[in-house]
């Protein structure tokens, strides 16, 4: 058994090592020569000169999550599609391209239907809630008027 083939992972490790070393090294080196005069005002978070109110870690809009959700589904899908895509040419050359094409298209289409669902339901609209509030308030107004 030869482990030499694993050597190709070496540059990755080396580069990651260089990256880490660079970050720490530069900061350590800088420590020697740069000034260090902390004060309360400096260490405050920047909020246009005002004192920050509360912490920044508050609840965020859930649409960020929906976007990342669709993303992860596609990400996983791409993990499945990459090997199939890389044998596509080979299959095509031995004359079985039709089958792999059908498999591929069916696979994609099923996921496209999911995206279409999200699209139709408005999960992809960034300003949807705004519209909704508008609708609701206008409805309320008309009801009150009548």
């Amino acid at each position, binding site marked *: *058994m*030869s*482990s030499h*083939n*694993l*050597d190709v*992972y*070496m540059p990755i*490790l080396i580069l990651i090592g260089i990256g880490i070393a660079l970050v720490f090294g530069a900061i350590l080196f800088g420590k020697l020569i740069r000034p260090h005069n902390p004060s309360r005002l400096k260490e405050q978070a920047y909020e246009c000169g005002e004192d920050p109110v509360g*912490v920044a*870690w*508050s*609840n*965020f*809009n*859930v*649409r*960020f*999550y*929906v976007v*990342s*959700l*669709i*993303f*992860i*589904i596609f*990400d*996983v*899908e*791409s*993990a*499945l599609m*990459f*090997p*199939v*895509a*890389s*044998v596509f040419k*080979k*299959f095509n050359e031995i004359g079985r391209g039709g*089958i*792999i094409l059908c*498999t591929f298209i*069916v*696979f994609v289409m*099923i*996921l496209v*239907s*999911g*995206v279409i*669902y*999200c699209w139709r*339901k*408005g*999960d992809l609209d960034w300003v*949807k*809630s705004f519209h*909704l509030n508008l609708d609701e308030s206008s409805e309320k107004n008309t009801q009150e008027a009548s």
Partner: protein
Amino acid sequence: MFDSVLFLLSAILIVVGSLGVLFIKENIMHACVALLTALFGVAGAYAVLGADFLAATQLVVYVGGVVILMLFAVMLTGGGAANENKFGIEKIPAMGNVKTYIIAGVNVLVISLVVIKIMANVMQDYKAVALPAYESTVEKLGTLLVTDHVLAFEVSSILLLGALVGAAVIARPIGSTK
């Protein structure tokens, strides 16, 4: 030799990361980063095992996908802030207390005994065989996915569809039930 180095690095990452997930109490964000470390280690272990495609998949799916999803979810559930909600309950719970850790330890001990008992048999039965050389698995995986495992391939897309639709429905903001 390099394979041992790679394995050791991965093992260290896995061990440190796993322990981090278990014991980092103050901030769930840090636990997520610890999980990221462990998953990186798993990718390295895959590389040592000759599963090049799986290693890359591990990176793409976990690093790019799951961890970011987790981070977003943490932010959406109040982030690291420790304040109380309207019921007077802690909004973000303590990450476990001594009692739970003791129970978990006992359970881990039990399951370890069981697993070690199984593994003892495996070790006795296992005969070392000649290991294959490292070679590309991508084409083989692709071929398997469209021949032997084509049903699983298609069904997995349906699974993903279900996950997408279900999660989108669940996570949809309250009040937008159009």
